[in-house]
């Protein structure tokens, strides 16, 4: 029930410095699989650290390390605030 209450969005729309818990990673392409393999799976905490000079790509902190990804890739990652 609490899940439902939490505000849900996608990783690319997070404010810089904000974090959220991954709810789902959508899609079934190679890139989806790679995102999951890098440890971004439901339940894990992610934080948007910063974005690059032209606002894309973004730097995400997950499981204690930092990962750069494009906003288009981050759009597939649903997070609960």
């Amino acid at each position, binding site marked *: 029930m609490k899940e439902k209450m939490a505000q849900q969005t996608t990783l690319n729309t997070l404010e810089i410095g904000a974090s959220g818990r991954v709810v789902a990673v959508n899609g079934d392409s190679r890139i989806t699989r*790679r*995102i*999951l393999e*890098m440890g971004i799976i439901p339940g894990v905490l992610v934080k948007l*650290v910063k974005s*690059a*000079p032209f606002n894309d790509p973004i*730097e995400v902190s997950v499981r*204690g390390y930092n*990962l750069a990804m494009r906003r288009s890739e981050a759009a597939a990652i649903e997070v609960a605030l």
Partner: protein
Amino acid sequence: MASTTAHSLTIALAGNPNAGKTTLFNALTGLKQKVANYPGVTVERKTGRWQLNGSGADLIDLPGLYSLDATSLDEQIARNVITGEQKGVRRPDVVVAVVDATNLERNLYLVTQLFDYKVPVVIALTMIDVFEKQDHEINIAKLSQLLKTPVVAINAKSGRGIKELAKEVHNAAEKGESSAPVFSDVDETSGPHAKIFARYSFISKAVQESTRHNDTPKLRISSKIDKVLTHKFFGLVILVAVLLVVFQAIFSWATVPMDLLEQGFGGLSALVKENMPPGILTDLISDGIIAGVGGVVVFLPQILLLFLFISLLEDTGYMARAAFLMDKLMSKVGLHGKAFLPLVSSFACAIPGIMATRTIENKRDRFATIMVAPFMSCSARLPVYTLMIAAFFAGQTIFGFISVAAVLMLAMYALGIAVAVVVAFILKRSVLKAPPPQFLMELPEYRVPNLRTVLQNMFTRAWLFLKRAGTVILAISILLWALMYFPRDLSPTPAADSSTTQAAVVETGGEPVEDVVKESEQLKHSFAGMLGHTIEPVIRPLGFDWKIGVALIASFAAREVLVSTLSIIYNVGKDADAESTTLVAAIRDAKGDDGKPIWTPLTALTLMVFFVLAMQCMSTLAVVRRETNSWIWPIFMFSYMTVIAYTAAFLTYQGGRMLGFE
């Protein structure tokens, strides 16, 4: 001491990129390592010998990977090695998994995949001191027990844990089986990614039970550095500054050893001439082989320096930041952010640039980058630009203060970049069509570079270049030499020779007049000279005569050869350089059969445009052949670049004439 194993052991080293695998490999094998490619692909195969409890073992360094799912070539090869399917590699008896303690969960993901292949695994835990410095704790015995796999904390630099690692590997080999949990039979009906989830939940549990984290971690040094280095504004400023330093080094520091090498090869060539009886063999050795090899080796200081910087940038972790900063710009053209540094390196020399594209995982992105790299104006084009500008545009200004020379120089660089952008755009939508490249890239912690790794990396790459390009370059050098040397006029009468000299000689650069003229006459009647005549109708529309044609053919050996070839053709002695006043004068005075000057500012500009865009570097083609592992790509590169160069030169010349320039 006595080993009970019947055969010499084979051990593979696997791990994530940046986990410290290379440092460990270097520490275990010392200098006894071999670098080659796996047959048929450009995945690097590094092997060495590891002295393991008295007996030697073959150590294979697998490419750095995040997963074994075989979606990339690296992963496919690694998997084949582990299962023993890779030709020429024995199935490893033990796999040493290099795991970064500061990044345990993601690093262990690959380890759980290794478990599936039921090969005995020993975990080498690196970066343990960094981990503990951050006030975290790890219970290694507990972790080992939970993973049912031996775990050894190591520090390759200080030697900590290396003996213990050897012992554990030895034991694991004797035991010959793995008791670690296997995930290959996880039911995937519940979802396509159930296996990934199962692995991570197992890992999370094991890590939670064996480590204790400091609740309020200090802001990591990397984050502090990144506040500046990937800052939206300062990040870009620093990137430009870094590149400036690299170029400064390449263009000023490298010239000292380059001049020395040039003199050395010149001296060697003269020495051969003096001490061997005159004849074809002597000429072949001194003018063909020594000059040909020298022409390539001269670039070695530059290439070494560039490799040094690339290795440094990679090892510190800055390379990934540069890709992060530039990805948006690069993706506009359809290229990956990682293509930025290889392309920038190509301004010095396309060869290290092309070899540095290996970090780009996707083959199509990588090939597109390779295909446009030679458009970046490399240092070998500089003598050509310098000569043309010195001859026709020196001292001129626009509005009284902007130097035409500077504007032209800048325009040549800009032209190369613009064409590269257009070609990359087209390639990514045609031959190399692919969805926009995925970016997903780890930003590793910054590290003080390991000097040994950096130097080893630099020398390995330089050696690979020499080995790869060397044979092709030698063959083509000899061919070009022969084209300019044959057919020989076997009975030159000194009288007839000198009668032709009077009219022909303008000035000479210090060589005896007769020799210089003889050389020039020889070239005119050689196969190359004939070829020059043959292609004249084709290059006429560009304003070039057959003499320029000969120089164009010769410059295929290397672009800067144009200068020395023109010197021979215009009788000023082949040692004239791009700023030689005699050569400049000879070019200005050169007249065609109709008495009109051959060279005009427009011809010079046309030649410069041609040089920006044409593929006149056999070393680059040889490297492309190796890097793409096919003849198709270098042939394609040569053809399309020649077509573009010809078209652009044609438009420049004819357009210029229509505008009233001569």
